[in-house]
């Protein structure tokens, strides 16, 4: 094994081009476990810790450019107003020790269906900035997850940042697990209201081979909210609409039975989370109009 320690982003790209099999390591949450347990013996480890810019973020007019290695603890502390859904999701990641090192880049690189950030990223809407010596491209999050632990990255590409749409309305995140800390999601649900475009987006974790959106549920809800004039009148959403939204979210799942839960339970729980998180966000929207702060 070789340990590559690029001091700059350019050096990292050159190293990845020269050694496409190199495994990038930043927070180590996934990679070190695989090495410790002898599940993986990469030829090259590509350490990204020396590249300071990966731990920085910029808040723009419409988007936050979040460096791939910005630790979850920083997202919770500094970006709760701009990225409330992701801040809530970050708080459910493992433990303080892990949140101090792990970041969204690792979640995306591993692309596990159970990654905690995915539902929040899908709901908020974002693009993944992937770069190689050949150039930079922005991959829409909807096109990023390509299979179980597979993503759209080319072998010579590295994730530099994620461009996440700043919240223009309330967002929520819900995760089912056996305790609060150190839990791999049984299933998870993210929702973001986008009053500017009068749309609602969703994200489902651990209930399909990849993180997914509940697109039929979104389409149904968007049409129902428009038809009823809910965005303007701010009325309580009719229970029948909420029920149908939850049923469609549940139907979007394609889960499996495993040690953490059964497929049946996951479908059921996703429906419940869809109903609850829609209720929470809609109350926020109706109440303060634009309460953007995520609650812990």
């Amino acid at each position, binding site marked *: 094994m070789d*340990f590559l320690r690029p001091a700059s982003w350019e050096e990292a790209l050159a190293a990845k081009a020269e050694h496409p099999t190199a495994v990038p*390591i930043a927070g180590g*949450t996934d990679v070190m476990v695989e090495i*410790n347990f002898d599940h993986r013996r990469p030829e090259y480890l590509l350490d990204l810790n020396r590249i300071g810019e990966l731990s920085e973020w910029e808040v723009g007019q419409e988007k936050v450019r979040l460096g791939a290695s910005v630790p979850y603890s920083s997202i919770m502390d500094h970006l709760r107003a701009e990225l409330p859904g992701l801040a809530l999701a970050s708080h459910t990641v493992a*433990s303080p020790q892990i949140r101090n090192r792990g970041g969204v880049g690792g979640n995306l690189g591993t692309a596990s269906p159970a990654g905690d950030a995915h539902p929040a990223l899908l709901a908020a809407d974002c693009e993944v900035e992937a770069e190689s010596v050949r150039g930079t491209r922005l991959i829409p999050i909807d096109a990023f997850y390509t299979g179980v632990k597979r993503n759209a990255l080319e072998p010579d590409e590295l994730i530099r940042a994620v461009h996440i749409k700043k919240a223009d309305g309330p967002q929520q995140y819900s995760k089912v697990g056996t305790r609060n800390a150190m839990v791999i999601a049984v299933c998870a649900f993210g929702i973001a209201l986008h009053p500017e475009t009068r749309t609602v987006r969703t994200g489902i974790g651990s209930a399909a081979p990849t993180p997914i959106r509940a697109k039929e549920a979104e389409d149904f809800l968007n049409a129902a909210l428009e038809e009823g004039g809910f965005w303007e009148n701010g009325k309580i959403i009719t229970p029948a609409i909420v029920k149908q939204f939850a049923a469609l979210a549940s139907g979007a799942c394609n889960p499996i039975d495993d040690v953490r839960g059964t497929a049946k339970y996951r479908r059921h729980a996703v429906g419940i989370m869809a109903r609850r998180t829609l209720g929470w966000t809609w109350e926020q929207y109706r109440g303060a109009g634009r309460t953007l702060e995520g609650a812990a």
Partner: protein
Amino acid sequence: MRVNFTVNGRQQEADDVWEGESLLYVLRERMGLPGSKNACEQGECGSCTVRLDGVPVCACLVAAGQVEGREVVTVEGLADYAKHREDAHPGGGCASGACGTSLDSAKRWQSKPTDGQTGEAVELSPIQQAFIDAGAVQCGFCTPGLLVAADELLENTPSPSDQDIREALSGNLCRCTGYEKILDAVRLAAARQGEAVQS
């Protein structure tokens, strides 16, 4: 490969480090510092918690090569670290400088709690003393990780709420105590810290 980094305030060098090796392995097997415990090796239990550039992390999830040039504080250096913080940086922390613990003394470090009869000098950090006084140690395997995590909590949050304590220690598993006495110990250390500031 060779890795140079600061351990408990003193510059150290580890040779012949395998590229896939964890910081935990280097500390325990190459530097003779077995205070950080090896239990789950997957970041689940927090027994190997150390400070990396001041931040609590699981040493089992840090690749040795990633600590090149950085600062690590282990439980063996916690008493000196806390003392230095108290003396030189009230309310703050510091891992570097001429004030660290030598590797030799870190290796020989043993807990010497206040002896009620002889009044022997204390060589424990306040959080360590509080764990003993509150009876928060049973088998002791989780204790080093809890001490490092709790000490960092009290450094940054001098008067933590119960919720703060539970959250800060949520990455540290203990299978003996049921956690109640551990929570007591952190409350005790926080209260003593508060009294010390007032007096």
